[in-house]
């Protein structure tokens, strides 16, 4: 599994893990994120069971199990959090931050030790070491209960499935040619994102944020001017089930 650093200032770091060459080809490639600050770490979108081994190996290069105080799952899908039952064995004191509506669904993955902390619909703040992360509502994009994670200091928005693309493992971590990249996103966004209204609400919300990197859970990340290009493209895109009949 490859690793790139997205941000580093003192003990405050963002790492992205992905493009796993050892991944079974039947499994989609996903991005996992580790945010660290002052001896505390949170794993965003820990991933599926099948890549748990590579993820555990990768995160231990940068942090220790004692310092991983929380996991975050934007929603309930297996590629996001089906590894929960395995993390549950190594992080007995950690919390799982996830939309409150998914608690009893997520427990199906195995959650005997990890404590569930549901995020209410309007979102909330999360203290990590000396910094604060914001859980930004992104409901119906694509899951009915869904959050992004925004870091004001690092100017990074972890956008979950928004901006996701199905890339090859040798594709660069960052989008370089936006127009070419849209072909990898269009079907997914039209088919999975269920509501134009929810999409417009989300765009209005995130346009108020200062974002340097928009980091989806699948595919290349958007940096600098690519962030605005993505928002403009998404704004124009008609999404929802009516478009896929």
């Amino acid at each position, binding site marked *: 599994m490859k690793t790139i650093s997205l941000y580093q200032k003192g003990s405050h770091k963002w790492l992205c893990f992905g493009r796993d060459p050892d991944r079974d080809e039947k499994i989609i490639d996903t991005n996992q994120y580790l945010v660290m600050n002052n001896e505390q770490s949170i794993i965003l979108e820990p991933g599926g069971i099948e890549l748990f081994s590579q993820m555990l*190996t990768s995160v231990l290069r940068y942090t220790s199990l004692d310092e991983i105080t929380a996991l975050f799952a934007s929603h309930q899908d297996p590629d996001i959090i089906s590894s929960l039952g395995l993390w549950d*064995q190594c992080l007995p004191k950690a919390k799982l931050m996830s939309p409150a509506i998914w608690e009893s669904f997520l427990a199906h993955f195995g959650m005997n030790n990890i404590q569930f902390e549901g995020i209410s619909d309007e979102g909330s703040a999360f203290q990590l070491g000396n910094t604060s992360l914001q859980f930004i509502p992104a409901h119906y994009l694509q899951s009915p209960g869904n959050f992004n994670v925004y870091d004001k200091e690092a100017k990074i928005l972890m956008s979950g499935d928004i901006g996701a693309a199905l890339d090859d493992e040798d594709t660069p971590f960052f989008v370089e040619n936006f127009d070419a990249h849209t072909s990898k996103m269009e079907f997914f966004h039209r088919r999975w994102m269920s509501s134009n209204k929810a999409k417009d609400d989300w765009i209005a919300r995130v346009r108020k944020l200062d974002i340097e990197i928009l980091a989806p859970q699948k595919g290349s990340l958007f940096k600098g001017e690519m962030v605005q290009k993505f928002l403009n493209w998404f704004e124009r895109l008609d999404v929802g089930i009516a478009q896929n009949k």
Partner: protein
Amino acid sequence: MSKNNGAAETFIAVAHVASELFKAQSIAEELSITSKNARALAVRAGSTAAGFNEITRFIEGLSKLTIEAASTVNTIAISQTKIAANMFRTGGFIERLNRVKYEPKEDKVDTIKVTFERVEKEKKQLERKISVSLRDLMDRLNETTMELRATQVVSVVSRVEASRASEDFQDSLNSVADKVSSAGVRINAHLESARKHLSILQ
């Protein structure tokens, strides 16, 4: 502790081993740069530092060896964490299967029993596989530690060679010796830590 927790302990310990070797690899990469700088220095120092040139080749060899060992251990470790994670899942399945209450029909094949036997067999195979693999991993760590003992010898010889070089280059050559010595100590500390994580499982 249940056997299932044992599987969890295995994948945690082995992931720790891989991360220690990753850190050792980073130091070995620094050592490789040191070796290249030392070679350039030896060339500039001329005939008085001719012996140093040979030493730099040896340092490069040690660095390469550590990087290769780290890569091998990493491959073994990732494969082991996968086996251990499978063991954990199989163990969990067996525990749940044990809780199934049913009455097998006399005239029908007891499919639960067949499943139970198959999974038990798979679990034993996984246990054997991981046991062999753990021994391999420990052997590889021990070999690398033995080979890295040479770093301290290299450091001493480097100092001797530095003392023979012209005065203008002595400080720089001694600094190379310090870096080799320090890299050896730090790499060994990571190997030792990796061994400790493995010894928990034995």
